[in-house]
């Protein structure tokens, strides 16, 4: 017996009447029980993709299959999927019980069965004392749980979630994130989850789909995306604080950068000879945790990296580790994808040179205005082609 994907998107595109291409050629295979995250900056087409799976938006071209059946022309009610909205979209004129039982009542289910299921769901989500309240009298977290309850009560084939946690305050969001993950594992229902928050993407998903301008950039487990980003965009989007990007120039087999001339290891050399590239100008990408206070690094690992000296600009102690910022007096790396990322986070407004973010161990004695020796782990660095944005060392 062949395994049928729970949800399959085959070259799905969405073109709006005004001509904008919101989603372009998305291919995605989601297996049964999988938790898949669509992530990307606003306007990247992730919500449109979700709405097309839901049936709330028409598909311009391509096909969507749910459980092996083509559903392009089916209205939402005939797709047997439930959705949780960012606004929760609770019916204000109905009680919590009325909200949760709404899908069952529409399905003309037996009254006693409805009551049994509502009780069960209320028990799972700890909503029992609230069943007779109206949504207006609930807190944000409670509303969110009611919205979840309405989705899980009819045991649909899949859950679609459109930024369900983004209206909660930070602390509650982290709490709900764990609960959500637990709930999904327990129910084992296929879930497609849209978010613009890379932390949610990293922590929740079995697999993450990074989208940009309507196109899928990379699909994979969170760790793979983190360790082996396919291009500048994914590298910069996944991870917080973000990866550092430095302009680098290939001269005499060494990388000339603001951190000094860096030697290349075999991995880099191999990547550079095999990959097609347009010039010797490259972008070097290093994650904050691949820097360390040189005085804390064991002698025998010195060789895997290089050491440079710099004066910390700002030191933020997080308790468990220290974020040390260096303002380097060089141009920032230039690439279209980096500009897009900067526009998304609002950092394109910061003027001046390059800001390097590093993460040191908590024991580091680094402080503002005192030059420290910094060790960089070159093993984990990435090299990108500034023109195509492609990761050459993947």
């Amino acid at each position: 017996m062949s395994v049928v994907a729970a949800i399959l998107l085959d070259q799905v595109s969405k073109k709006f009447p005004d001509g904008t291409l919101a989603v372009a050629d998305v291919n995605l295979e989601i297996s049964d029980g999988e938790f898949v995250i669509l992530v990307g900056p606003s306007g990247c087409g992730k919500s449109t993709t979700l709405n097309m799976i839901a049936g709330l938006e028409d598909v311009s071209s391509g096909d969507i299959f749910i459980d092996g059946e083509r559903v392009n022309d089916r209205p939402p009610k005939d797709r047997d999927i439930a959705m949780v909205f960012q606004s929760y979209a609770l019916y204000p004129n109905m009680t919590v019980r009325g909200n949760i039982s709404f899908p069952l009542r529409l399905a003309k289910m037996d009254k006693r069965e409805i009551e049994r299921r509502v009780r069960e769901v209320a028990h799972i989500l700890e909503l029992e004392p609230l069943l007779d309240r109206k949504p207006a009298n609930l807190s944000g977290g409670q509303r969110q749980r009611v919205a979840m309850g309405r989705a899980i009560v009819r045991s649909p084939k899949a859950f679609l979630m459109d930024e369900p946690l983004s209206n909660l305050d930070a602390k509650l969001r982290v709490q709900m994130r764990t609960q959500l993950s637990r709930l999904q594992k327990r129910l084992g229902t296929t879930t497609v989850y849209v978010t613009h928050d890379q932390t949610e993407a990293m922590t929740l998903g079995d697999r993450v789909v990074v989208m940009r301008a309507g196109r899928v950039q990379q699909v994979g487990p969170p760790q793979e995306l983190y360790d082996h980003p396919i291009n500048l965009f994914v590298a910069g989007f996944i991870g917080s604080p973000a990866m550092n990007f430095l302009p680098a120039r290939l001269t005499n087999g060494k990388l000339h950068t603001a951190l000094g001339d860096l030697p290349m290891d075999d991995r880099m050399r191999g990547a550079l000879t095999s990959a097609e590239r347009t010039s010797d100008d490259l972008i070097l990408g290093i994650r904050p945790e691949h820097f360390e206070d040189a005085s804390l690094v064991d002698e025998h690992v010195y060789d895997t990296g290089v050491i440079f000296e710099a004066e910390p600009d700002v030191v933020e102690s997080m308790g468990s580790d220290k974020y040390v910022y260096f303002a380097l007096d060089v141009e920032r790396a230039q690439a279209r994808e980096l500009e897009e990322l900067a526009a998304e986070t609002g950092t394109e407004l910061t003027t001046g040179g390059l800001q390097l973010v590093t993460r040191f161990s908590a024991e580091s004695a680094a402080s503002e205005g005192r030059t420290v020796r910094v060790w960089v782990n070159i093993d984990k660095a990435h090299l990108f082609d500034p023109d195509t944005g492609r990761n050459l060392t993947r």
Partner: protein
Amino acid sequence: MAAYGEVTTARKWRWGLIDLVVVVVVLIPVLWIVSLSLKTPETLTDGSLIPREWTLDNYRSIFSTGLFTRALINSIGIALIATAVAVLLGMMAAYAVARLDFPGKRLLVGVSLLIAMFPQISLVTPLFEIERVLRLFDTWPGLILPYITFSLPLAIYTLSAFFRQIPWDLEKAAKMDGATQAQAFRMVVAPLAAPGLVTTAILVFIFCWNDFLFAVSLTSTEASRTAPVALSFFTGESQFEDPTGTISAAAVVITIPIITFVLLFQRRIVSGLTAGSVKG
């Protein structure tokens, strides 16, 4: 000095006084007509606000002939039917205006507002000619149709403001929960728009009920003559009798339904009129 917006005692008194003056100016004619309707013909012109001799004869006499009763029935029937149709059509149009983006939407809203602003007096003659040809003159539909025409813009305007306040997500959620478009409208949107529907219905009803111009020009007999017009046709039993008393009594009678409505729903009406301007 008191800061702007701060409520001081002096400020309270000043506004209280202004409010009182306005209320008195507005209410005196109403009190006067109530007083007139309760006076006997002999004391009618005595100039006193409080009748010296109280009588209900005027009320008895307007209901004695059946002419006024018939006009009341016409008024109620015509206003109710026009209201029902206008609210129903207005609801559908307003829903489309609020929810859909279709070519010519702005034009539609613009034209409907234009109709509301058009001086009605300039349409009376053409309407009269049209209705005579179509044999609608002096019939219920002959009044119901123009009433619907002129109240629809108001209905569309207020209702679309209400529909716009209902988050679209609710409808999407209902569809995801398994509802058809019609079910989503009936079970989710309509209950939430109910206050808007009530407000609109009352406003349209008041417009139809109060109309005099169309009613006087497009009717000729008691077959369709409405109460405000019937009232203007009151004459004394003989040419020497002054109909002021009976006219006053009739005027009081036709005011009662409006006052009742407004008192019952005043909160709703205010929120209906300001919907859209504040939140929409």
